[in-house]
């Protein structure tokens, strides 16, 4: 048994590919927990960042700087009365949030946090991610219908129409990126998430910069479509507060509502992961081919630890600035303790054995986090599209653009071959 | 045309109150100012004690008021006597009460428009001005036509307000219905008033000014005056099914439709 567990450590495959059930299970648990923590952190960050964009403080009461606010919220949501409308379709009403959450979490089994850090490496990784995440539209439709109420129904209709529409443009962008993987000597492309990153490594360029500006345009299409796909501002029509109160989850409360919340944020992380994988080099650190050598390796290896130390430093800085009042003593101590924990993590990350294993995850998470920040930024800046405008953007702008990029990518990629054929004739 | 900003020359009382303003004599003691038509009303603050528009020379104030007396409530201003057509009538009233804060008096309003309307509608209407604000009291029977003429020929294209007043003391014609009109082209504001009795209806002005839609509904809601030809004559502020029209004087301030409250709100009383 121990050998079975140990045997994987020397492998250079993902646990799924290596067929190691134990490690696959460990990865699933770790990803599940990590995702939950990420959603909680995201919740706090969104409120804080949005608040600071809007010249206010955001949560400040529960814990130092409101750090415990999401936890308090979670407890509140769990303890809240679970209301089901009398006329609702009980079974479907019950199923819908579970379905959405399942769809949102399932996609993470192929997300490559590193060359070996994924539950499994599927041959159809991208396809799988797009397909399974599109299933959440079903859950939303179910929720809207089962509530037996007008606002959720309209919200569900909007959301399903929106998701189906934007999936097409999204698919075009994805295909053009997948096509780029096949532009090597063997001419063999891949849909595997890990394979795509490795292709970028092998070709020595992130796909966002490949065939400039084609890769950039494809990335742009995806970046717009993914916001629409996750029903976030400025495409948050299904839950447009001012129009449909809360859209498809108007009738949901308590725990069920929190499941929708969880699903929304993990879906955001999931699509960001796709974008990072396809265009931004996945787990690759910046300039993996340009800035090589032991010195540069060390330089980039130090990033995770430095980041955590920086966070710890911010905590200590805030601790110093806390009001000197007995009422704040516990909070001050808590903040200092949090800083110590972060600092310790940072120090641990300097240990060579650890930092080499962790740096892939670090770079991947950083890139995803940048997307998360973009999401928040959008929300703070943009008004909401109207439904017909949303459809117009999806069908009349993004889709033709996507088709064009697809054709151009194929043409540019095959140009040497075509040239050769003509030359040889 | 002149309005409150440019008081017409025919309204001398503009500056009148000032010299006497230092006297804090209650303005209710206005009897002394009257020259001819003495009014014996309204010293009490009770709203019911409104001056009856009827002044002695005009036994039936509601109908086709003789020019000697402005027919409406405002017409019962103390110094309303005097020659009706000439603005000089007002100054004549002044010396009678120099010690009192002489209230301004409605005076006749002369303008080409009024002359034209007079020619068209004859004695059914009377044009007056008070505090620089022009208004005309018209007979109930003229109501749709004169409004139509004002809108079409005189460019009163903006119906500012439609409202009403309740004067239970008047025998037959309990209600005033008042249109406040404004003309963008002339920068002029006038009021058109008419009197109707309880239970009577009056032609709607919605075909003339769509703006009157809700305003007339509110008048119906508050006074129970029905407007014929209104597209959607129903209550607007109070719930449908409410009994009573609250702005009538016989409707107490604490009064409620208890039945409605009990049925719809499930409580004993809204008070």
């Amino acid at each position: 048994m121990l050998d079975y567990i140990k045997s994987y450590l020397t492998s250079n495959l993902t646990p799924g590919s290596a067929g190691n059930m134990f490690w696959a299970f460990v990865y699933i648990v770790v990803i599940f927990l990590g995702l939950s923590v990420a959603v909680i952190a995201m919740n706090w960050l969104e409120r804080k960042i949005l608040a600071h964009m809007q010249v206010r403080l955001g949560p400040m009461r529960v814990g130092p700087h409101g750090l415990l606010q999401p936890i308090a919220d979670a407890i509140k949501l769990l303890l809240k009365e679970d209301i089901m409308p009398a006329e609702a379709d009980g079974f479907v009403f019950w199923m819908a949030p579970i379905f959405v959450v399942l769809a949102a979490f399932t996609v993470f089994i192929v997300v490559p946090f590193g060359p070996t850090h994924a539950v499994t490496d599927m041959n159809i990784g991208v396809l799988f991610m797009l397909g399974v995440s599109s299933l959440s539209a079903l859950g939303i439709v179910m929720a809207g219908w089962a509530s037996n109420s007008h606002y959720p129904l309209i919200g569900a209709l909007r959301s399903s129409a929106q998701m189906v529409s934007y999936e097409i443009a999204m698919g075009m962008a994805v295909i053009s990126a997948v096509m780029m993987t096949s532009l090597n000597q063997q001419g063999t492309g891949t849909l595997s998430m890990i394979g795509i990153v490795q292709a970028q490594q092998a070709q020595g360029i992130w796909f966002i910069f490949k065939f400039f500006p084609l890769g950039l345009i494809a990335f742009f299409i995806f970046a717009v479509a993914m916001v629409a796909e996750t029903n976030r501002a400025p495409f948050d029509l299904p839950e447009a507060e001012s129009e449909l109160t809360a859209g498809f989850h108007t009738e949901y409360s308590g725990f069920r509502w929190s499941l929708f919340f969880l699903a929304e944020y993990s879906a955001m992380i999931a699509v960001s992961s796709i974008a990072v994988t396809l265009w931004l080099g996945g787990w690759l650190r910046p300039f993996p081919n340009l800035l090589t050598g032991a010195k540069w390796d060390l330089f980039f290896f130090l990033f995770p630890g430095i980041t955590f130390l920086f966070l710890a430093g911010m905590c200590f800085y805030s601790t110093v600035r806390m009001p000197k009042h007995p009422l704040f003593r516990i909070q001050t101590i808590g903040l200092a303790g949090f800083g110590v924990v972060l600092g310790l993590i940072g120090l641990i990350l300097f240990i060579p054995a650890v930092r080499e294993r962790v740096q892939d995850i670090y770079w991947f998470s950083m890139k995803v986090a940048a997307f998360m920040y973009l999401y928040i930024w959008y929300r703070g800046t943009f008004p909401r599209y109207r439904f017909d405008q949303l459809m117009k953007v999806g069908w009349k702008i993004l889709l033709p653009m996507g088709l064009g990029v697809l054709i151009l990518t194929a043409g540019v990629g095959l140009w040497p071959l075509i040239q050769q054929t003509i030359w040889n004739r | 045309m002149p309005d409150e900003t440019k008081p017409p020359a025919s309204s001398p009382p503009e500056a009148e109150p000032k010299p006497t303003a230092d006297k804090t004599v209650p303005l209710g003691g206005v009897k002394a100012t009257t020259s001819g038509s003495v009014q014996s009303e309204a010293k009490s603050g009770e709203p019911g004690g409104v001056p009856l528009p009827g002044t002695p020379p005009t036994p039936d104030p509601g109908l086709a008021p003789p020019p000697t007396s402005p027919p409406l409530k405002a017409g019962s201003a103390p110094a309303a006597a005097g020659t009706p057509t000439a603005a000089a009538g007002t100054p004549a009233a002044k010396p009678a009460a120099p010690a009192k804060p002489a209230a301004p008096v409605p005076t006749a309003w002369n303008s080409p428009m009024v002359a034209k309307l007079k020619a068209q509608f004859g004695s059914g209407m009377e044009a007056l001005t008070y505090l620089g604000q022009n208004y005309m009291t018209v007979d109930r029977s003229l109501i749709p036509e004169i409004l139509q003429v004002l809108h079409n020929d005189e460019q009163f294209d903006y119906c500012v307000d439609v409202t009403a007043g309740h004067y239970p003391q008047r025998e037959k014609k309990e209600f005033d219905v008042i249109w406040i009109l404004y003309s963008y082209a002339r920068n002029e504001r006038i009021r058109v008033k008419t009197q109707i009795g309880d239970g009577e209806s009056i032609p709607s002005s919605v075909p003339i000014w769509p703006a009157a839609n809700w305003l007339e509904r509110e008048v119906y809601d508050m006074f129970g005056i029905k407007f014929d030809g209104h597209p959607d004559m129903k209550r607007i502020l109070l719930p449908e099914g409410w009994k009573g029209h609250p702005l009538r004087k016989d409707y107490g301030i604490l009064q409620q439709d208890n039945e409605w409250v009990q049925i719809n709100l499930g409580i004993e009383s809204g008070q």
Partner: protein
Amino acid sequence: MAADPTNHMEPVATPFFFYLLGGLMLIGGVLVITRKNPVHSALALIVTLLAQASIYLMLYAPFVAGVQIILYAGGIMVLFLFVIMLVSIERSQRERQFNKQWVVGMVAATALGGLFIAVYTKGRGIFPEHALPAVEAQNTQNVGTLLYGQYMFAFEIASLLLLVAIIGAVVMAKKRI
């Protein structure tokens, strides 16, 4: 590495998963036709489709599985539900659920059953004794090569059909173009 075609995960508890998924498919299929509420029917159909996708996965046909999920479960069923939701549920529940064409149904069922039995008993000759070596890693590429190589003509015919269907739908939906 991942692209290594020979290295793939050994199947785990194949019979168990096969029977589980097969059972799910059957139950879903039965529910599709027996539920009075069309939304419930559609949900049961989704269960069937997902189970089917999983069986494709077990058969080392991940591309077909992915397409099944994207197109059927994610796309077509959403549109199905879209339409069903707008239909008055009360009215549809009052309508008769089964038509009375027992004879035709029985004949068709018997024929299908006979076909299954025939395949089951004599099928060994038709199908090879052992499954073809499953090459998961090359599956998608193979599908692509076949579609754009050997079956190019059929593929293009199908796409033409779809194009006609799209144009027809647009013509029917738009009152004026």
